[in-house]
């Protein structure tokens, strides 16, 4: 809570300073520097927390899409963003939560998104494909596997953290 208060006053302070300096010119010149300066302070507070995403008993062997919202601070913008994940249990009964963002140019992939490949993730933009475990299918545009969310489970609820690159085969 106290961290939050600090952010606000910091931002207000910057706002006042900028308006004081005068006009867009100054703001334009300062913006890159200021962004650089406040980013490291704001990032940890706004991200890095785990968000409740699903109940464990909802999760099956078939990847399902779950959406959730979180507040995000990105430089000047503070907004509520919707995040999504494809979640399933693999053959070893482990939970896998994959980011839907295609590693080629960032479109949303969907499980069984193409009738021709009912057991792969499919990207509608340039026909990129991924196997169920998130590995990119060689010969399609993506050059890396889908990012995987960090997760933890507590009292029957699945919490997701940050999506991390899997760094598998290229």
């Amino acid at each position: 809570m106290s961290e939050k208060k600090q952010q606000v006053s910091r931002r207000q302070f910057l706002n006042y300073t900028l308006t004081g300096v005068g006009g867009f010119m100054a703001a334009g010149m300062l913006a890159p520097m200021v962004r650089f300066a406040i980013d490291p302070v704001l990032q940890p507070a706004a991200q890095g927390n785990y968000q409740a995403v699903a109940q464990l008993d909802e999760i099956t062997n078939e990847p399902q899409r779950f959406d959730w919202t979180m507040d995000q601070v990105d430089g000047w913008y503070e907004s509520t963003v919707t995040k999504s994940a494809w979640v399933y249990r693999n053959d070893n009964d482990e939970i896998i939560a994959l980011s839907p963002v295609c590693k080629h140019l960032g479109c949303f992939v969907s499980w069984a998104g193409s009738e021709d490949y009912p057991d792969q993730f499919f990207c509608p933009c340039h026909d990129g494909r991924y196997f169920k475990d998130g590995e990119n299918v060689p010969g399609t545009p993506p050059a890396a596997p889908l990012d995987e969310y960090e997760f933890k489970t507590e009292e029957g609820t699945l919490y997701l953290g940050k999506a991390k690159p899997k760094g598998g085969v290229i």
Partner: protein
Amino acid sequence: MRWQEEDIDLYIGAKEYVDTLLIPLMPLSMDDKFDINKLTVQGELLTIFANEIEKQFKGRIFLMPTYNYMFNEESSLELTRLNNWVDKIEANPFKHIFLLTLDHQWKKHERDLAGNLLWFPAIQSGNVSSKESQVIIKDQINQLSELIRSYW
């Protein structure tokens, strides 16, 4: 992709993959004789649609900053200006150009437009963030993305 530094770098390196341009058309007015309330709700919806579509198809769609114009019964002036805009952009090869709007006046000029008109009727209820509206909006977005994919 969007009209912002981060995305432009990506765009320049991947031009051949980004073959679709999306331009939201948003009417403005401060004139009491129009239903300004309705116009603002439509404006909010348009922004939501555009943002969601961009997010889903980031790697293939370039979202232009919104084209604003004064809401007016006589829109032929805008037609010329908009087509001009599109012509200039088309010099940079985009295969598909979509004009997204909730303003039904464009429907009349559909044949003369230099792009595919995606016109959507607005939901009537005021609150864009209510649960019921969200369901409808989600559904409209799905229809919209399917429509776009059908052109590819």
